[in-house]
């Protein structure tokens, strides 16, 4: 029950983009069309779940027993970078159809702060490996929901008569603000 609550909270109440501002760059950059948004969301779900699992295992069995806690930032960022490369190569070789769907978004994920952020939050909040992985998956779901909604709104926004100085970046930010306000409604779920 606690895990379900945690997942709902990570996914909707504390939405990773709209409430914690992690992964804003790709949220703004890849949300122009709904199909690319779905691809990016899928790729992030894949990497984020895997990364929180791998980082959790490394932290538990390597960093903690040897008292190397202080290396966590360096280790995690390198692990994420290596993992993304590895997943890309693996998919290319063994799962061609999945690679075709997600492949092009994988390189965009390394410096997505959501991935490193979740790995660090897992450590900070002392989640065990299973809880951490579920938290990572739920966070990625939250990201996916947010980016897909934004992509659909932006597809419709093409037809709107936006004031000249608001075109592009500002209107997307205003849209995100309104979405963020809407997501506040979920805090009643607590």
């Amino acid at each position, binding site marked *: 029950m606690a895990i379900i609550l945690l997942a709902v909270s990570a996914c909707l109440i504390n939405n990773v983009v709209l409430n914690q501002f992690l992964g804003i*760059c790709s949220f*703004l*950059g890849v949300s122009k069309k709904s199909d*690319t948004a779905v691809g990016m969301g899928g790729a992030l779900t894949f990497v984020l779940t895997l990364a929180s699992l791998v980082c959790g295992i490394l932290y538990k069995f390597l960093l903690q027993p040897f008292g190397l806690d202080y290396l966590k*930032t360096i280790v995690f960022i390198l692990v994420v970078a290596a993992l993304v490369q590895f997943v890309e190569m693996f998919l290319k070789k063994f799962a061609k159809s999945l690679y075709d769907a997600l492949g092009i978004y994988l*390189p965009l994920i390394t410096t997505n702060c959501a991935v490193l952020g979740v790995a660090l939050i897992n450590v900070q909040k002392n989640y065990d490996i299973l809880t951490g992985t579920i938290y990572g998956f739920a966070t990625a779901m939250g990201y996916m929901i947010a980016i897909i909604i934004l992509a659909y709104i932006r*597809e419709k926004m093409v037809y709107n008569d936006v004031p000249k100085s608001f075109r592009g970046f500002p209107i997307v*930010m205003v849209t995100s603000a309104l979405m963020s306000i809407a997501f506040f409604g979920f805090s009643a779920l607590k």
Partner: protein
Amino acid sequence: MKLKKDSVIERIWNGIFVENPVFVLVLGTCPTLATTTSAINAIGMGLSTTVILALANLIISALRKVIPDRMRMPAYIVVIASFVTMVDFLMAGFTPALYASLGIYIPLIVVNCIIMGRAEAYAGKMPMIPSFFDGLGMGIGFTIAIFFIASIREIVGAGTWFGMSIMPAGYVPVNIFVLAPGAFLVYAFLVAVMNKLKIGAGRRPKSEWDPTVKVCGECFSCMKIGMCDKKPEECEETPAQTIAKTKGTVAEAIAKPAEAAKTEEGKEA
């Protein structure tokens, strides 16, 4: 004003005005939005980023002839992450209150695009002194910009500035400005004002800086920073850009669906 290129003053001036990371390059959006809930948070975040930026630039520039080209990105990441870890511990030790309120965003300086971007665009190929001051200037520019945003948010949203009450007694704080949506709104309106007045971000052609328009372009305002194994000058179009190009915008797709269908059939054949 005409300044000598790559001199100390020119670099600092460049960071604060010409290429301000927040208002002109629109880099590092995450900390800009997340840590501007109060002026003191913004100053803390800005200063720690400045220190890391300047020192990382200095070390990367010193090592630029030792680091092999292919191992550039991992090497930069390790240098930056080391400085971030140091700052993390220093802040935890000496400013515990600030550290608690910035929380996760201190270690996340590692993935701040500004730092990777400066390493790639400047420190990787310039001598140490200009690189150091380039980092310093960029950091100061970042600090000033987020301090400005944070001041607006704190004054409107809480009626205080640095924790002191400065608004008249009858003022009812607009709470939403210190909450998440306020960050988006303030940033949006500031960029819109700059577009109107043709200053800051509005001075540059939109295709050059707008993060909502392109996925990866000129390398140092690109999300692939940290992964890309190419030099900026060899940068090609990314697959995502190619997709965007072939499929065009929604409006175009509706205007000529027949043509699009034809070309797609042709490709399959």
